[in-house]
C-alpha cells in the first residue's frame, strides 16, 4: 500500500558546502490514518524536515511523495496548483506569528478554501465555523482578530485552518505547546479521531514526549540531522535502543524523580 507521505534520503544544505548540511539522508513514512511522532533536541532538524516536506526548504538530495506523487520536483505554477489542493498542510510552532493580525479568525480559516475557489463566501464561512467547532472553539470567535484571542485559542485556530481544506498530510510543529492540559488533551483526542475518520497522515513534531504517548503510532528520532531510531511508539518510548533516545526520554522531568518515561509507564 502506498503511504500518504514518503520522504526518502532527504538532504537539506544551508549553503554550498557539505558542512552546512542540516538533514542527512532522512527518511520518513506516514501511512494514511497514522500519527508519526518526530522527536529530537532543538536543532536536530525536525522543523527543517517538516519545511522540506512542505516544499519550503529546497532539497539538496532525496524526494518527497504524497500519495505516491513526487512533489519535491514541482516548481512555480505547478507547485502552487498542488498546494491549492490543500493535501499537505503545515501548522507552525508560533501561533502568534502564524495568523495575519489584520484578518479575522474566520477569514484566516477560510482563506485556503477561497484560494482554491471552493463555494461561495457563505459556504466558506460555514466550513470555517465547522472547522472551529472541530477543534473545540466557539464559532463566535470567528469575527475576532488574532490580537483579541488567547495564545491557546490561536493555536487551535491555526489547526482549524489546516483542517478546513481537508488535507491528506498534516505537519504539526509543536501544536499543543501553548495549551493547558485540558485543551491539550482535547486537541490530541481530535487529532486521534480525525486520523481514523479522515484517513489523515499526521507528522507530530514535539518536545513533549508525554503528548505522543497516547496517540502516536510510530516515532522517529532525529539527532544532528539523521534518523537514529524509528519504530512503533510503545517500543521507542518504553524500550529505546539508541543511547540518544534513551537520554532524551530519561531527561523528561518527573514529579517523583528523574526516572525515564518508560520506567514510569511500567510501574
Amino acid at each position, binding site marked *: 500500500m502506498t503511504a500518504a507521505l514518503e520522504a526518502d534520503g532527504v538532504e537539506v544544505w544551508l549553503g554550498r558546502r557539505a558542512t552546512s548540511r542540516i538533514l542527512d539522508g532522512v527518511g520518513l513514512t506516514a501511512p494514511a490514518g497514522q500519527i508519526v511522532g518526530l522527536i529530537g533536541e532543538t536543532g536536530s532538524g525536525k522543523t527543517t524536515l517538516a519545511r522540506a516536506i512542505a516544499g519550503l526548504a529546497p532539497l539538496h538530495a532525496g524526494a518527497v511523495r504524497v500519495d505516491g506523487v513526487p512533489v519535491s520536483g514541482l516548481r512555480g505554477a505547478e507547485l502552487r496548483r498542488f*498546494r*491549492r489542493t490543500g493535501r499537505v*498542510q503545515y501548522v*507552525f510552532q508560533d501561533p502568534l506569528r502564524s495568523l*495575519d*493580525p489584520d484578518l479575522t479568525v474566520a477569514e484566516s480559516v477560510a*482563506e485556503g478554501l477561497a484560494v482554491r475557489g471552493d463555494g461561495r463566501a457563505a459556504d466558506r464561512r460555514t466550513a470555517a465555523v465547522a472547522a472551529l467547532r472541530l477543534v473545540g472553539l466557539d464559532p463566535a470567535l470567528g469575527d475576532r482578530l488574532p490580537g483579541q*484571542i488567547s495564545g491557546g485559542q490561536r493555536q487551535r485556530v491555526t489547526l482549524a485552518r489546516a483542517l478546513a481544506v481537508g488535507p491528506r498530510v498534516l505537519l504539526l510543529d509543536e501544536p499543543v505547546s501553548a495549551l493547558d492540559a485540558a485543551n491539550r488533551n482535547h486537541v490530541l483526542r481530535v487529532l486521534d479521531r480525525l486520523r481514523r475518520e479522515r484517513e489523515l497522515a499526521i507528522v507530530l513534531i514535539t518536545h513533549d514526549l508525554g503528548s505522543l504517548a497516547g496517540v502516536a503510532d510510530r516515532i522517529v528520532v532525529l539527532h544532528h540531522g539523521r534518523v537514529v531510531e524509528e519504530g512503533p511508539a510503545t517500543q521507542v518510548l518504553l524500550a529505546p535502543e539508541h543511547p540518544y533516545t534513551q537520554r532524551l526520554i530519561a531527561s523528561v522531568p518527573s514529579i517523583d524523580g528523574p526516572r525515564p518515561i518508560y520506567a514510569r509507564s511500567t510501574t
Partner: protein
Amino acid sequence: MRALHAVGRAALIAVPVLLISTFITFGLGALSDQNPAAAAMGETATQADIDRLNHEFGLDRPFLERYVTWIGDAFTGDLGRSWFTHIPVAESIAQRLPVSLSIAALALLLAVVLGASAGIGAALTAGSWFDRAVTAVSAALSTIPAFVAGIALIVVFAVLIPVFPAGGYVPPSQGIGPWLTYLALPAVALSLDSAADLARQLRTGLVGTLRENYVTGAVVRGLGPRRVVFVHALRNGAGPALAVLGLHVPRLIGGAVITETVFAMPGLGQLATTGALQGDVPVVQGTLLVAIALVLASSLVVNVALARLRPGSGRTV
C-alpha cells in the same frame, strides 16, 4: 466603523491643535509690531495715518477679541484683506493654492510610486545588488535638500538638456501636457526625500513581514506571489511606511515654499514669502492657517487609511 472611529479620534485631536496653532500664528502676527500704515505707506506714514488704518483694520481692539473675530471669520472663508494691496487674502490664496497643491500632489504621487516600487522591489530581492543599490541611493537622496535637488535638476534638464522649463507655471486649463511639463522638475525635486524615506521604511517593514509564519503559511496554501505580497505582506509591512508618508505630507507642503522660490512659481509659498517681506501680516496669517488646515486634513486622511489598512494594529486581548 473602524474608519469612522479613526476619523472621530483624529478630529478630536485636530480641533485643539488647530486652535493652539492658529492662536500662536495670530499671536506672532500681533507681536511683530507691524501695522497696515507702515506696510502700505512705509516711512511716509504719519501717526494719524497709522491710527486711522489701525482702526480701519480693527487693530485698536483687544488681542483676544481680534483673535476670536479672525478665527470666526476664517471659518466663513474670510481671512481679511492684505494691508498692502487691500485684496482679500482668501482670494489671493484661492488663486495660488492650486499651484502649491499641484506641486505637492504630484510630488506625493511620485514619492509613492518611486518609493513603493523601490521599497517593494528591494524587499522581495533582499540581499541582492538591487536591494543594496536602493539602500545606497535612498541614503544619498535623503541627505540632499529639495532646493539643491531643484537647482541640480534645472542645470541638467533645463540648461544642459533643455527638455523642461527652468521655471514658471501654466494652469491645467491651458493643457494637461504643458501643466505637467512645468510641474515635473519642482515635483521631482520635492519628492526625492520622501521617496527615499518611503523606500527605506517599506523595505525594512516588508523584509520583516515576509519572514512571518502567516506569510509562509499563505505560500503553503498556494497563494500566488502577488496575493502573498499585496494581501498579507504589504498590508502589515506598510503601516510604518504609511505613517512616515503622513509625516512627509507637511514637509511637502512646507517644502513647496522653497521649491516655488527656486522655480519662480506663483504658489502659496511665494505669497507667504512676499507677505512676510512686506510685513503684510494678514497674508502671512492666512497662508499659515491654510497650511495648518492642509496638514491636519492630510493627517486625518493618513489616520483613516491606517485604520482601514491595519484593523488589527494596536489591538490586544
